[in-house]
């Protein structure tokens, strides 16, 4: 008996956010997606440490190496230390292509917390890497294989994640900021401000998204520095993104404005700022989070598509779209399929964000069944 009343009390006294969290926890798929995303962002934060090599380190003798496996068993039996095999190069008689054959006699054990090339992020500099390989200069460990220039794809995917994973977040942050402020202002004030904003949104939305993104990205000069290029792309992606949010926020504010609790606050002498920040925005927050979460994967896909077309992030900067540029040729599709590996990560991230957004959507309305 007591259990039931406790549970009942808990439901009645729980705040909106507690209820939302409780409902979200029930959705195991969304929860799992959230965990996977957290892990991916953590690894991205530590990308310099996790990656065995710098993204532009070239192994000139090792172009187009297929992904290498990590082994524990060799012909000589079990090894306590995981190792990779060395490679022997032969050439195809007809095409002259390199063919890599496993060298069963050369075993290179993995070294954990190995010292390697310098890397830094946010002011931390280090030479320490999660793993490396104890091998001659020309050899290395290539978990995802190497590209045309003999650069380690695993390291490049990790460094590319720095751009690909953050551009969606930053872009959505700008959209949310812009959309919320403008949406609240136009919904709360009404009048000419509202009219102006509505017309602006109408016009911006008359532009087709992808061609507009392409045209704007083409306007970024090719010689700008990396940070400028990064923020230009982010701004371009949020250029249209904020309109959806502004519309939604405005509609919600319009309906909330006539609620009694807002009137009560105004009667008690609350200023505009207090009404907006204390009463209106918390009322819309749930929906904002949902729309923002769903907008992130769209931006990630857009960035990779633009970079793939060489309109977004350009080499020497890397992002997953840039890495996939190599996949445009038929030879890659036929001989070097592993170069499409970044696509799997794009897919995984977008899938997780969509699941997460679905979970948030159900949880944002905790009072419904």
């Amino acid at each position: 008996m007591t259990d039931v009343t406790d549970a009942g009390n808990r439901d009645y006294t729980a705040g909106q956010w507690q209820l939302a969290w409780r409902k979200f926890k029930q959705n195991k798929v969304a929860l799992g997606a959230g965990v996977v995303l957290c892990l991916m962002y953590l690894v991205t934060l530590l990308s310099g440490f996790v990656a065995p090599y710098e993204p532009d380190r070239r192994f000139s003798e090792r172009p187009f190496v297929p992904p290498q496996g990590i082994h524990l068993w060799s012909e000589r039996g079990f090894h306590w230390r995981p190792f990779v095999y060395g490679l022997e190069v032969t050439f195809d008689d007809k095409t002259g292509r390199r063919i890599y054959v496993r060298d069963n006699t050369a075993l290179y054990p993995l070294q954990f917390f190995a010292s390697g090339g310098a890397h830094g992020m946010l002011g931390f500099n280090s030479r320490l890497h999660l793993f490396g390989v104890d091998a001659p200069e020309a050899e290395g460990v290539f978990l995802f294989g190497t590209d045309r220039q003999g650069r380690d794809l695993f390291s490049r995917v990790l460094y590319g994640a720095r751009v690909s994973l953050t551009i969606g977040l930053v872009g959505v942050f700008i959209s949310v900021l812009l959309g919320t402020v403008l949406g609240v202002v136009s919904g709360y004030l009404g009048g000419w401000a509202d009219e102006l904003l509505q017309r602006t949104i109408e016009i911006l939305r008359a532009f087709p998204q992808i061609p507009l993104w392409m045209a704007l990205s083409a306007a970024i000069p090719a010689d700008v520095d990396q940070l400028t290029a990064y923020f230009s792309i982010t701004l371009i992606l949020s250029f249209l993104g904020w309109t959806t949010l502004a519309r939604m926020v405005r509609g919600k504010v319009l309906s909330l404005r006539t609620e009694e609790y807002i009137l009560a606050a105004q009667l008690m002498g609350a200023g505009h700022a207090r009404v907006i920040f204390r009463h209106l925005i918390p009322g819309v927050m749930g929906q904002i989070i949902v729309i923002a979460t769903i907008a992130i994967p769209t931006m990630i896909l857009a960035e990779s598509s633009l970079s793939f077309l060489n309109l977004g992030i350009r080499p020497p900067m890397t992002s997953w779209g840039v890495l996939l540029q190599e996949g445009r040729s038929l030879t890659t599709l036929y001989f070097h399929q592993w170069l499409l590996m970044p696509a799997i990560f794009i897919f995984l991230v977008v899938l997780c964000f969509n699941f997460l957004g679905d979970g948030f959507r159900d949880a944002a309305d905790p009072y419904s069944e």
Partner: protein
Amino acid sequence: MSMLRYILRRLIRMVPTLIVISILTFVIIQLPPGDFFDSIQAQLAESESRAEQEAFDTLRKQYHLDQPLWKQYLYWVGGCLVGDFGYSFEWSRPVSELIGERLGLTFLMSFGALIFMWCVAIPIGIYSARNRLSFGDYALTFLAFIGLCVPGFLVALIAMHISVFWFGGSAGGLFSHEYQYAPWSLAKAWDLLKHLWVPVVVVGAAGTATMTRIMRTSMLDVMDEQYITTARAKGLAERWVIYKYAVRVAINPMISILGMQIPQLVSGSIIVAIVLGLPTTGPLFYRALETQDMYLAGTFLMLLAILLLLGNLLADILLALADPRIRFD
């Protein structure tokens, strides 16, 4: 009659929007520093002779590139009104001709994708709604989710791989070599159809996922309505209840997005068309952006915006036709 008045009012309201759009388009196209002749000159930088310099200046004058921006804009918009969309520097041909000859295939591909989407999405949506939470529903929902998560260019790459290495087709393009420049004939049309299915499926894939979800949700809503219960209580055959009563209403959201879908498909197919090397407008636009062929890029962007506005209108009209409950005021 009220319908005609409504359409007319909407069309008139479009005019100021179009003016702003044309200005914005022009500004966006002008954003990259320099012009087409600068990029040509950069390529020819080694042979910077005086004669060439003068030749470029003459060309600039001929296309009003030496005038202030607002004058250039007026020349362009003035031309657009009488069907002269300017001149493509790279192709040395009028923009209207270039876009015109590729428009047919672009629309053919978009319509193909549209039909594909409808034929796949509606039956699946109905099935999913009727067998809610069954294994089939979960499997199809999961497939739809995957369809949403794979970038279009990747689907295009995979489709190209399948068509080349499994079916021995040609790598991209819409025609076999022998028909590339041949005049239209039955054989050429058949050849086109043989190539067309790849881009049609690829372009339609992402949209199909969204549409399946819409159809499923709409169908679920309708199935809860009382008139469906009434129809069942009367003893109507289930088939009759579903197709005559439920689907008839549940399909309305699909119709209302129909008008928006053609422009969305045209712009959505750009990247796919670039990857597959199709002779549609998308690759033309991409190339024009790269070479700063501004009138070509600008016209294409503006045409798409107009298409989107008209699509919006069409969506509202179609919805009104399909759903007699909607009134114009």
